[in-house]
């Protein structure tokens, strides 16, 4: 029996009993589905301007109202959601990829290599990282329009440090277990040990942390698009538009409420899910 089959089943059972996590997962699924299929089903073009329909409050024709150029807000929120969610997932994937590899190598080889690698991590922790990421985005903003790669990489780079530490910790503690020693005796090389034995067992914390990374990345991306540096239409940009017209003469509440609501709901759902996963996989950890 390979190690790790039991705990997973237990974890899943615990997860299923957690109302917060379930609600979060359901909400997330709903939002993702709406963003993925909604615009296509509803048939509204988020880019089509219609100056005559400027700033319309929510109505039957436009469920979320229209913006300063007469564009349908519902379509824009859903399409913006695609960007936010896609960026969140992609950047997290980058973060997990780099962090896992880095931490695994450090944990597996130990000794001087580990010290060196962790030294770099410690140094990087002290760097005002957000600052550099924002700088990267600002500098490449012109060319980044339509070119999402620098965005994903830049955002992913923000979170890999903690991932590396977590994976390293896990690998270190798993390294001396019997099944690893057995594999070594059987002649397995480092890479094989890593891939088939160590990583699958380290999966728990990685999953938890990844689930908590996604909202952090979405948050950062929303900051950037709020500042006007986003790569494509996204929720942060929509909130910025909503904020930019806040005035005492006329209220355009829908411009602010709907994008904020979606952003907040997504982040809340992710955080609930992440908390739930963490409780499920490691009930001893403090909330």
């Amino acid at each position, binding site marked *: 029996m390979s190690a790790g089959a039991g705990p997973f089943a237990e974890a899943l059972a615990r997860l299923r009993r957690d109302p917060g996590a379930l609600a979060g997962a359901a909400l997330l699924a709903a939002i993702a589905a709406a963003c993925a299929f909604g615009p296509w089903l509803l048939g509204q073009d988020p880019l089509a301007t219609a100056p005559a329909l400027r700033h319309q409050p929510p109505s039957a024709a436009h469920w979320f109202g229209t913006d300063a150029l007469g564009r349908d807000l519902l379509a824009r929120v859903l399409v913006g959601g695609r960007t936010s969610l896609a960026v969140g997932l992609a950047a997290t994937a980058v973060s997990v990829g780099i962090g896992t590899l880095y931490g695994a190598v450090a944990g597996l080889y130990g000794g001087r290599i580990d010290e*060196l690698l962790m*030294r770099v991590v410690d140094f990087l922790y002290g760097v005002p990282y957000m600052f550099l990421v924002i700088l990267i985005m600002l500098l490449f903003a012109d060319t980044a329009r339509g070119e999402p790669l620098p965005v994903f990489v830049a955002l992913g780079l923000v979170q890999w440090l903690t991932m590396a530490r977590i994976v390293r910790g896990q690998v270190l503690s798993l390294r001396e277990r019997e099944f690893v020693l057995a594999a070594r005796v059987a002649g397995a090389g480092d890479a094989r040990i890593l891939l088939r034995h160590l990583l699958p067992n380290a999966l728990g914390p990685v999953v938890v942390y990844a689930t908590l990374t996604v909202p952090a990345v979405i948050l950062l991306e929303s*900051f950037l698009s709020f*500042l006007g540096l986003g790569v494509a239409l996204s929720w942060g940009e929509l*909130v910025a538009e909503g904020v930019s017209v806040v005035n005492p003469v006329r209220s355009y509440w829908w411009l602010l409420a709907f994008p*904020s609501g979606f952003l907040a709901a997504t982040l809340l759902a992710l955080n609930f899910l992440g908390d739930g996963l963490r409780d499920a996989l490691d009930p001893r950890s403090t909330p």
Partner: protein
Amino acid sequence: MTGAVAVSLAAAILLAAPFLPPAALRALGGLFLAAPLFVLAPDRRLGALAAALLAAAAARWLPLRVLRRLTWLLPSLVLLVFVTTGLMYLAPGNPFANERVASPQVEAALRAQYGVPRSAVEFFGVYTRRLVLEGSLGPSLKVQGRGVADLLGPAIPVSLGLGLLALGLAVGAGLALGVAAALRPRSWLDHAAMGIALLGISLPNFVIGAGLMVLFALELGWLPVAGFAGPRHLVLPALTLAAPYAAYVARLARAGMLEVLQQDFVRTARAKGLSERAVIQNHALRGALLPVISFLAPAAAGILTGSFVVETLFGIPGMGQWFVKGAINRDYSLVLGTALFYAALVAALNLLADLLYAWLDPRVRETR
């Protein structure tokens, strides 16, 4: 030349730091602590003297842990400047590309005048030399006739003030919330507090800010909508900036306090008959405070970066606008100026937090 040397030296020190003997750490740590004093001192000789004294005192009395951090400090700043410079040179566009003069001779003249050579390493050398020898941040490349220090000067107190206000609110409110929740675990108060905390973490700060703005400034009219013309203008921005960190602090404080409250020695103390109050004050609060303090430095860093957005939202004339404008306009000196300031601030806060933590937690006093 200078640039390459400086960078190599910095990298070497950083990599070697864990292997350095204590004597070297003391020397370097003291040196690096005193260096800014020398740079900023108006009188060179007086500054050198003061710096030397400070270095000696620091080497003798500061704990090794702090000295180790100091040893890192300067090289990491140097590397930060280098990396930022590299990024800016890497990015498309350069500050002189858009000037109305098209001829290469005039561009060369402009480059010479402002001290911006074509290579990143050279510029880095020029910049660090000017910084160390003249204590100057250089001229802004885009705002005519202004030095970087002129532009940042009035903006720094505003951002600092706002950030510190937010930090104070975050610590104060967060601790209060967290401790209150920890004292009555699983009560409705606990759930409510943690619920609010979760909201604070989940919502982007500009959403919170926009909400506060709509409620307090527009609907109720109690506070100004935007701009900076008095202390009242800082209330909403500070609350907005503080919110997510108050939430983190609350969660950390609650967790830390709960952990302490469950430990053996607390039960022993209670069994001995010590009043609840003494128990809380003496032990549990420390459990709440320690993780918060070690979170202070990253919190401050986060507040600094969050301030870009909040300053934009509320129209506060702080550092955020200069950073954004500088990067958009490829104003290298301006960007480096803001980067240096932020990095130095974060480092200083890290240091303070370390010192405070060491003072509070006897277990940490031992050198590593």
